[in-house]
C-alpha cells in the first residue's frame, strides 16, 4: 500500500536516514522501533509531509506523494506532544478536519459523537483541552485524527508521556481501535515491549538504517545482528567462532546449534536469551560455573552465573542458591548465530 523507495535525509550534513526502502501492507500494524536518533521519527515526518526527503520517493497506492503538502495526503498523524488546539472545545478539536472539508453540521456531529465514543470519552465534547489529563488529551488527539477516516494513521510515540498503567491500557485500546477501524497503523516507539505487544510487523532501526523487519516473534527469536539482539529483550551476547555448520564455539566450549551457512572457522556473534539458559547439575552441563547473585522477579528468578569468565544471565522458575556450582546447558535450537557487524549501526549499544 505504501512503498518507501531509497529515502535519504540529512540535517546539517549529519545523515539521519540512509537509503531506506520499506513496503507497508494494507491494514497492518507496523512499528518503527529503535533508540532515539535512529531516524524513526524523521521517517514518520517524511511520510506525514513535514520533512522533505533529500532523495527517494514515497508511493501511496502506486501514486508518488513525496511532493504533496501535508494537508493533501491521505494520512493523519497523532503527535507525541499534546498538539490539541487550546482555543477550541474538545468537540471543535475533533471536528477541525471535517469542518475544513466542508462537511455538513449533522454529519460532523455524528462523527464527533462516534469518535468520542470510540476513544471512551463520551460526553467530553463541551470541555476544553486544559481540563483534560495527559491520557485523555492523547485520546482526543487520536479521535481528532480518525474522524477524517485516513487510510493510514501515523502515531509518533503517542504513549510516551503517560504513566506505565495508563500506557498498558492504551496499548490494548489502540489494538482494539485498529481492529474496529480496519486501517493501517504506522507506529513509532523506542519501547520494545510496546512494539512486541501491539505490532503485526516490527521494523527495527538504528543509525538511519533498517536492521531487521519481521513479526514480533521473528525479531525476538531470530535477531539478525547484535544490535537487534541487544535492543530487543535481554540476552547473553558472545563473540564466537562458527566451527562448521551446526557447531559453534563460545567461551572456549563447543555448542551444538541449528544454524548453517556461516562458513567454517568464521567469527560470528551468538545470542542466547536468559530464559533459554538451562541450569543443571555441573556434570550435565556443557560448561560449569558458580551462581553469583539471585534476584526474585515475581514470575521467575533472575540469576547471574559466572562461567568461563562471562556473567551469564539466566531466567528460571527454579532457584539455584547463591554460591552453588551449576552446569549450563543450551538447547541447540535456542542458540541464535548472527553475522558479525559490518557497520557501526549493527553493533550493540554501548550504554544499554
Amino acid at each position, binding site marked *: 500500500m505504501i512503498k518507501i523507495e531509497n529515502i535519504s535525509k540529512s540535517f546539517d550534513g549529519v545523515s539521519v536516514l540512509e537509503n531506506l526502502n520499506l513496503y507497508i501492507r494494507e491494514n497492518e500494524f507496523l512499528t518503527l522501533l529503535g533508540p532515539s536518533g535512529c531516524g524513526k521519527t524523521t521517517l514518520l515526518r517524511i511520510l506525514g509531509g513535514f520533512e522533505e526527503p533529500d532523495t527517494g520517493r514515497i508511493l501511496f497506492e502506486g501514486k508518488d506523494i513525496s511532493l504533496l503538502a501535508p494537508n493533501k495526503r491521505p494520512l493523519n498523524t497523532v503527535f507525541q506532544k499534546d498538539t490539541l488546539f487550546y482555543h477550541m472545545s474538545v468537540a471543535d478539536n475533533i471536528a477541525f478536519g471535517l469542518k475544513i472539508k466542508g462537511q455538513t453540521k449533522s454529519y460532523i456531529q455524528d462523527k464527533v459523537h462516534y469518535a468520542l465514543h470510540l476513544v471512551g470519552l463520551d460526553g467530553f465534547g463541551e470541555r476544553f483541552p486544559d481540563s483534560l489529563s495527559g491520557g485523555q488529551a492523547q485520546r482526543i488527539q487520536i479521535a*481528532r485524527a480518525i474522524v477524517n477516516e485516513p487510510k493510514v494513521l501515523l502515531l509518533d510515540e503517542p504513549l510516551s508521556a503517560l504513566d506505565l498503567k495508563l500506557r498498558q491500557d492504551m496499548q490494548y485500546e489502540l489494538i482494539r481501535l485498529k481492529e474496529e477501524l480496519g486501517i493501517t497503523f504506522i507506529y513509532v516507539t523506542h519501547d520494545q515491549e510496546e512494539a512486541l505487544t501491539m505490532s503485526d510487523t516490527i521494523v527495527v532501526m538504528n543509525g538511519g538504517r533498517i536492521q531487521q523487519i519481521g513479526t514480533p516473534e521473528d525479531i525476538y527469536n531470530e535477531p539478525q545482528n547484535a544490535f537487534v539482539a541487544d535492543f530487543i529483550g535481554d540476552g547473553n551476547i558472545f563473540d564466537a567462532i562458527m566451527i562448521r555448520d551446526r557447531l559453534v564455539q563460545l567461551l572456549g566450549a563447543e555448542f551444538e546449534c541449528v544454524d548453517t551457512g556461516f562458513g567454517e572457522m568464521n567469527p560470528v556473534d551468538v545470542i542466547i536469551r536468559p530464559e533459554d539458559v538451562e541450569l543443571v547439575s555441573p556434570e550435565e552441563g556443557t560448561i560449569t560455573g558458580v551462581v553469583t547473585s539471585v534476584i526474585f522477579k515475581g514470575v521467575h528468578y533472575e540469576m547471574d552465573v559466572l562461567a568461563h569468565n562471562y556473567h551469564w544471565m539466566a531466567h528460571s522458575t527454579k532457584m539455584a542458591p547463591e554460591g552453588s556450582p551449576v552446569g549450563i546447558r543450551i538447547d541447540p535450537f535456542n542458540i541464535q548465530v548472527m553475522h558479525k557487524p559490518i557497520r557501526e549501526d549493527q553493533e550493540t549499544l554501548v550504554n544499554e
Partner: protein
Amino acid sequence: MNRIRRQRPALLAGPYLLWSVAFTLIPLVLIFWFGMTDADNHFTWSNLAAIGNSDNLKALALALLLAAIATVLCLLLAYPIALILAGLKSGKSALIAMLFILPMWMNFLLRTIAWQNLLEHNGVINTILKALHLPELILINTPGAVILGMVYNFLPFMILPLYTVISKIDREVVMAARDLGANSWQTFARITLPLSKPGIISGITMVFVPALTTFVITDLLGGGKIQLIGNTIEQEFIQGSSWHVGSGLSIVLMVFVIASMALIAKYDPQGTGTVIGGQR
C-alpha cells in the same frame, strides 16, 4: 526566626510600594482633588463637564480617531513582521528583532524631530522633490504626519508582544492543523491568529493608550494645527489656564482609556493581554 523569613518577600516589595505611593498614588489623588474642585477649593463638576465644550469634544474625538487609525496601521504592519520573525531560526530572529527595536534606543523627541526635518516645507523630502522638478507636498502639520509619528514611535510596542506570543505557538500544533487538512491560509486563520490573540490585545493596548494621550507628537508634527485632547490638557497645565480644568479633562481621558481596555478585555477572556482581567 520563622516570622522574619515569612516577612522577607513582603519587605522586598517595599521600595516599589514607596515609589508608587509617592509618584502614582499621591499624584492621582491630587489630580482627583484638582479635577473635582474650583479655584476656591469648592466641589464642582464643571471641570469634568469641560469635555462637553465643542473644542474639547473635537480634540477628544480626533484623538480617538487618529489613535485608532495608528493602532490599526501598527497592527497591520507588525503582524507580518512578527510572523516572519517567529518563523526564523533563533539567532537570525534576534538580529532582525534588534533592527526593529534599535530606533527605541534613541531618544523619542530626537526621533520625532528627525521626522519634522524630513517632512517640513523646506525639509529633506520636499528638497529632493524640488531637485527632481516634482511638485512639492504639504506633509507637515497634517493628520497624516501625526499618524506617521504615532506609527513610527509605537510600532515596536506592537511587534514585541506579537512576536513573543507567536513564537510561543508550538510548531507541532501548526503541523497538526496542516495534517488535518488545513492549507496554510486556513491554518493561519483558524490556529495562528486565534492563538496570538493575547499578543494582539496587549499590542493594541500598548499602542492605543499612548497614542490617545500623546501631545508631543502633535506638537512637533502637527505644528499647533492639529489639536488632540492631550494637547488641550497640556495647555491647561503649562500655559497656565487652569490646573483644575486640566485635571478634570485628565480624569475624563482616564475613563476613556479604562473603558477601551475593558472593551478589549471582553475579547480576551483569559485576561492574558491586558491589566483588566476577564471573568473566566
